[in-house]
């Protein structure tokens, strides 16, 4: 009797989750696809696709996006893996500061970094001018391919850092000792043992970085100049000053999704070749860094994080400078903040926090349910749900934004312009992080603990709530933090869906930048940075751990 009831509950949950996916994911995507192939007078047409491939003006955007995102992925790995290695295996001085600072860099909206870098390294940037005037060196320009690579690599390497910390922590000391006893130490051990063991995580981090770089909208918009990427092109087609070509925007979106799917499958294939999982019974003891190597490690870590943090610090400094619209004036005051207060500052903060927290709550609940269904209750239906839950991985934000507008502009679901549609977008877009890490964690938890609980007479739901969920906690929390980071800095879907009621801090910042109001932009960007810093501190306080665990 009880057994039957339990099956009913989980089956009902499976169908509920499936229903949500159909309504909020498949239905909008179907609308997008239809928009891409149906001509203005009805009837199926491939005109929009052929236009894309016929004109190099359009097709080059995809090539450019692929090139720059691949380069960004490689550079973030090169930057992020060493710092994570030093952090995980050695007792660095001020490790916590390094970690929190790089978390902050990751949390900042990418376009804020880009904007600040323009002020620092643009043709008349502070640093550029310094080099030109005092050292007579022309350090080149921040614009184009190199600029996007520079800004995005510095912005995204913390993600590699965070991912790799998790992997390195799970490397068992016995493996390290075993390789040492066979004479494999130092760099050789790093490459042949440690990196190999961390390979699944490296691939996972690469995918996250690649997808974020590929879909990034703000950075190329601000510093791309002639280097045209596809998210900007979708935006131009959808929101450009010259009328709307929804069909063409939809077609470009479909092409982009096909490409990101291909990359995703490639990554899955690569990961399948490293089909093992690691879990440390005795984690590696952190060593004290000694001698010249110790100094170099500290130098590397602090210089890297320092450079990445520079744009944040500079924007906070600028926010206190006097300004009149686009022109910064001598002297300091709170003028920019007073202006911001007149421009929906309170509402922007409120929306960012409340809509963000609401989205996160939904994400966590749904992610736990999905993880449980997928790992503990394998079935055809649940495998299908698992596959569905990965779709958002390959959907750039602008594509989700457009798909939701197409799906939910008309009655009975006239949701465009409401807070609901923003929450839907954020949940769809940022859920995969939490689902993945919750699923991965649950897979590592042996069934026998739960079986022990039930055999001692605990009911199944209680076992789930009291045993399973707490054991998944680490995975859920680390995934949820990634989700939260990306929600707070969300631009590319919000720009399509927001309005004055649902405006967020990043949107207010973007609007100020795009209207050329530098002082106001600096104030909003600084407040965004402060809000994210506070949320990190709250997290650290709540988790109460000495060592920062994520």
């Amino acid at each position, binding site marked *: 009797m009880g057994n039957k009831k339990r099956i009913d509950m989980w089956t009902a949950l499976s169908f509920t989750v499936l229903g949500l996916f159909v309504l909020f994911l498949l239905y909008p995507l179907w609308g997008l696809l239809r928009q891409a192939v149906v001509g203005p007078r009805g009837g199926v047409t491939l005109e929009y696709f052929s236009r894309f491939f016929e004109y190099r003006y359009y097709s080059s955007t995809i090539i450019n996006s692929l090139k720059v995102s691949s380069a960004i992925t490689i550079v973030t790995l090169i930057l992020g893996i060493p710092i994570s290695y030093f952090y995980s295996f050695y007792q660095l001085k001020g490790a916590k500061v390094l970690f929190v600072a790089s978390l902050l860099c990751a949390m900042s909206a990418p376009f804020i970094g880009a904007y600040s870098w323009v002020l620092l390294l643009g043709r*008349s940037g502070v640093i550029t001018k310094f080099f030109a005037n005092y050292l007579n060196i022309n350090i080149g320009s921040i614009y184009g391919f190199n600029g996007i690579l520079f800004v995005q690599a510095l912005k995204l390497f913390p993600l590699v850092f965070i991912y790799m910390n998790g992997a390195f922590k799970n490397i068992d000391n016995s493996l390290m000792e075993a390789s040492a006893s066979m004479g494999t130490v130092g760099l050789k051990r790093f490459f042949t043992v440690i990196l190999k063991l961390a390979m699944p995580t490296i691939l996972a981090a690469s995918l996250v970085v690649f997808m974020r770089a590929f879909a990034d909208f703000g950075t190329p918009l601000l510093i791309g100049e002639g280097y045209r990427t596809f998210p900007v092109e979708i935006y131009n087609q959808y929101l450009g000053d*010259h009328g709307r070509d929804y069909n063409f925007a939809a077609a470009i979106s479909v092409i982009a999704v096909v490409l990101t799917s291909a990359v995703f499958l490639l990554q899955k294939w690569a990961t399948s070749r490293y089909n093992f999982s690691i879990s440390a019974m005795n984690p590696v003891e952190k060593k004290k860094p000694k001698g010249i190597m110790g100094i170099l490690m500290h130098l590397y870590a602090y210089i890297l994080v320092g450079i990445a943090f520079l744009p944040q610090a500079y924007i906070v400094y600028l926010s206190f400078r006097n300004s009149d*619209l*686009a*022109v910064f004036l001598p002297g300091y005051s709170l003028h920019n903040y007073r202006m911001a207060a007149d421009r*929906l500052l309170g509402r922007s903060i409120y929306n960012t926090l409340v809509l963000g927290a609401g989205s996160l709550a939904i994400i966590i609940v749904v992610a736990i349910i999905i993880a449980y269904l997928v790992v503990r209750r394998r079935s055809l239906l649940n495998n299908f749900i698992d596959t569905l839950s990965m779709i958002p991985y390959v959907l750039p934000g602008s594509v989700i934004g457009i798909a939701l507008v197409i799906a939910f502009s008309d009655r009975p679901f006239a949701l465009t*312009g409401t807070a609901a549609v923003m929450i839907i977008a954020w949940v769809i877009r940022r859920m995969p992080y939490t689902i993945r890490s919750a699923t991965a964690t649950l897979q590592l938890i042996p069934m026998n603990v739960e079986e022990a609980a039930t055999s001692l007479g605990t009911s199944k739901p209680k076992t789930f709530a009291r045993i399973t969920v707490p054991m998944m906690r680490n995975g859920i929390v680390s995934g949820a933090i990634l989700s939260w980071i990306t929600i707070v800095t969300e631009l590319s879907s919000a720009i399509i869906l927001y*309005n004055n009621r649902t405006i967020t801090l990043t949107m207010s910042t973007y609007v100020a930048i*795009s209207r050329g109001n530098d002082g106001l932009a600096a104030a909003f960007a600084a407040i965004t940075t402060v809000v994210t810093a506070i949320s990190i501190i709250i997290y650290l306080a709540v988790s109460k751990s000495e060592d920062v665990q994520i």
Partner: protein
Amino acid sequence: MKRYMVLSLVLVLSLSLLVPGIALGSSDFRSNLVLYSSMTDNDLNNLVKLFGEKYPNITVEIVNGSAGELTSRINAEKNRPQGDIMWGGLSNSDGHMYSDLFEHWLSDHEDEILPAYKSPNGFYNLSHLSTIVFAVNTELEAELGMNITGYDDLLDPRLAGKIVMPDPNSSSSAWNHVCNIFAAYGNDSPEAWELMEGMLRNKMVISTSSSVAFRAVQAGEYVVGLSYEDGASTLLKSGATNIKLVYPEQGASASAFSVAIIKNAPNMEAAKLMANFLMSAEGQSALGTELGTLRFTNANAVYDTPYLPATSEIYWVDRDIDWLVENKEQILRRWNDIYMRTR
């Protein structure tokens, strides 16, 4: 006791619902108003200030964005309109493109508007002009030893990579410049196309945002920005000393931009009050005086534009608006081809 309080509260509330109807048009009229606008902060801050002096009980909320962003937003929100009124970005060369997004309504002052700027479609109220202009950084210009006066200078190798123009595919101010080149050199003329190809060959930077074309020039990123009067002259007003406006000697021309009421606006009456204010001689005079950077369309408006040259100092050329509207897609396609060939 409690019941009486509730009752009186209900009474007061229902009375307050009637008040807007009674007080319509007077300064006591109480409402919110959501303004969608692509205008500069200088324009908007002053509009809100002056409008607020006349209608202190209307709370204005501004949504900034490019014309394309805002019209897309209005279209997406058709079934649940969030905005009431849009000002700027709606050009007299749009034709009937946005016919289903706006109320077909003209202000009470339409008969006072200069003949050239009567509504072209019955729902655009043409309120002000946007003349193309080169924003020139005078410090950098002097460093190069140049004196920039017209289009020929844009082909000078000394300016290679130092000119910025927004993307005419996405920015109305850049399209404004393309239109002006045809007005000055002839519709579809080889000279016009040669000039544009030459500019692109001279490594002209295409930016994605319209404001870059004046803001980044002031900041010293570029020497010349292909921009518009209002944006560039606002820098002068803000105290920039390294900027000048150059009207090309081959001829300059303007687009007229409008204010329009969003279809089924939730605060319709307040929106109409603002549109009437923007189109009236009173409103345009007050705003024109406060701004000093914008030319208006009401024949009776009186104001100074200390940051702009007098109309008589500029060599004006006429545009063939019908031809431009009709051939826009073709022109942009050719522009994009040249762009790809020259990269």
